[in-house]
């Protein structure tokens, strides 16, 4: 019993900042700055949400409510997240399946390279990439950001998918091969349906890691494209606290839902497929 109380109080400590953020988004500017903080008893105020998403703009014209663009920041994050995760998945499925099944000469070297790619400080990719992108006119474009996020997520996707494919019995491949199916057909029609849970997990984790990535998004997105973390970091002056809270609350809730869906495989994703829960 003591153990349970202790465990729950620790959980409370960890959830408190999230709770604090979400409640802040519903506070008016007086309650927001009051000390001791008003944790439960405060006047619920939706004005921050109205300003962030421009609801009131739909009803009446008010020039001070000009922040409708914040909705488009969430759209930016969605486009980059879904685009890069889809591309990651396409590349990762073939590579992961091949690494899982085949024994080739440079297999260990390839795995080491993938892990080394995971180790790279993102700033050391972002600086050279800035110049490369400048030459190819990829700065401030969705495709440029999608490509770099794909690269960032590839080590996770390839190794995680490999671990999921490792769990599909090799017998399936071999029987189908004897029956004369081509390897690509075996993968598409037998293996992918067997591993679709794992593929969904990889997809969701890739979206999350693209959603949270900061420095490359800052470097590549300039004026037109700003993902959610970049936008949030701009709103750090005190007058926009409530708007920042409303904006980030809206942007982290979809991630919470996604992660609770794949919670069982989350540890496996974090450890690139090595530790299973």
């Amino acid at each position, binding site marked *: 019993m003591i153990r349970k109380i202790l465990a729950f109080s620790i959980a409370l400590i960890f959830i408190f900042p999230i709770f604090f953020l979400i409640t802040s988004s519903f506070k008016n500017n007086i309650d927001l700055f009051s000390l*001791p903080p008003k944790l439960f008893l405060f006047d619920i105020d939706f004005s921050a949400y109205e300003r962030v998403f421009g609801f009131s703009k739909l009803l009446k014209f008010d020039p001070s409510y000009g922040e409708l663009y914040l909705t488009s920041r969430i759209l930016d994050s969605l486009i980059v997240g879904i685009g890069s995760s889809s591309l990651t998945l396409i590349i990762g499925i073939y590579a992961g399946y*091949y690494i899982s099944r085949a024994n080739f000469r440079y297999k260990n070297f*390839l795995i080491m390279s993938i892990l080394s790619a995971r180790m790279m400080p993102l*700033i050391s990719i972002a600086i050279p990439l800035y110049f490369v992108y400048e030459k190819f006119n990829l700065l401030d474009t969705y495709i440029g950001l999608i490509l770099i996020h794909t690269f960032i997520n590839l080590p996770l996707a390839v190794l995680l998918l490999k671990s999921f494919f490792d769990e599909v019995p090799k017998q399936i491949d071999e029987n189908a091969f004897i029956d004369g199916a081509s390897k690509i057909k075996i993968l598409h029609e037998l293996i992918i349906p067997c591993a679709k849970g794992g593929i969904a997990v990889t997809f969701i984790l890739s979206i999350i890691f693209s959603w949270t990535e*900061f420095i490359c998004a800052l470097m590549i997105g300039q004026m037109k494209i700003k993902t959610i973390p970049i936008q949030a970091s701009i709103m750090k002056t005190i007058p926009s606290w409530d708007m920042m809270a409303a904006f980030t609350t809206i942007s*982290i809730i979809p991630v919470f839902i996604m992660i609770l869906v794949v*919670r069982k495989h*989350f540890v496996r994703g974090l450890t690139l497929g090595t530790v299973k829960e």
Partner: protein
Amino acid sequence: MAAQKSYSLPSFMNSDSSLPWLLPLITMLIVFAIIPFFYNIYLSFHEFVPAKRALLFVGWDNWIRLFTDGVFWGSLKVSLYYTFMCLLIQLVLGMGIALLIDSDDPGFGIIRSILTLTLVIPPAIAGMIFLIMEDANYGLIPWLLKSVGLIGPEDTILADPTLALWGVMIVDIWQWTPFMVLILVAGLRSLPSEPFESAVIDGARPFQVFRRLTLPMLHKVIAVAILIRGIDLWRMVDYVFVLTSGGPGTATYTLSLYSWQRFTFVQWGYGATISLFSLIVILIVGNAFIHFAKVKW
């Protein structure tokens, strides 16, 4: 590839060329890892010269500057301190909490779900939350510390040269201790129960059981957790960017942030040199760790 055209069935995958399967992956690795690496080397021997508005060859100047630059050594110290302290604290705290919630009871399952949530918050936003909570005038944490008398009434956290780094580390510890907890709990849950039962029968004390049984059996899980956490701690930039921007003065520059800051000051070559240094260090240390800790994929 023709030589591999054997018909031994169990390794049938060898009979085909590996290229179509791996080509997209290898292309991505070349474009986004190999090319930036060599481009970084190229940049580290060049510098943008404002008078001529051009990137000119400067020889070893950037590297000489790197090893004589006090701010660089400071940021290296901050990066090392940050990485080791956070890793140590998160590992110890994580192990404690993991042992606490390692149970079949459904209540502890809820706690594990709660702990998952901190990990998916964008670090920049986690930084923003703590920026509000650590604000000198309206923040909750300074207010709490002042009311119990740990800091003086005029003290601040993020503007104080000695406390600022801890103000950043507290965010990291808050956000990523659950990472350690979840991985270690997964490891603990997968251990067989027989050795523990017989140890209890033999009258081993709990600490002995932990030292002699749990730790050695968890060795692989702990190694993976240290590796991945260490990589992310070393390249951390989001928190300092949001919370302190390296300040006060240069007290919280990490290597990545200092490199980014030099880049924005149009010292492209020097910025690239710092990031290259950081990259080479982590590649050597990371791969050596994988080798010596025998982490297998």
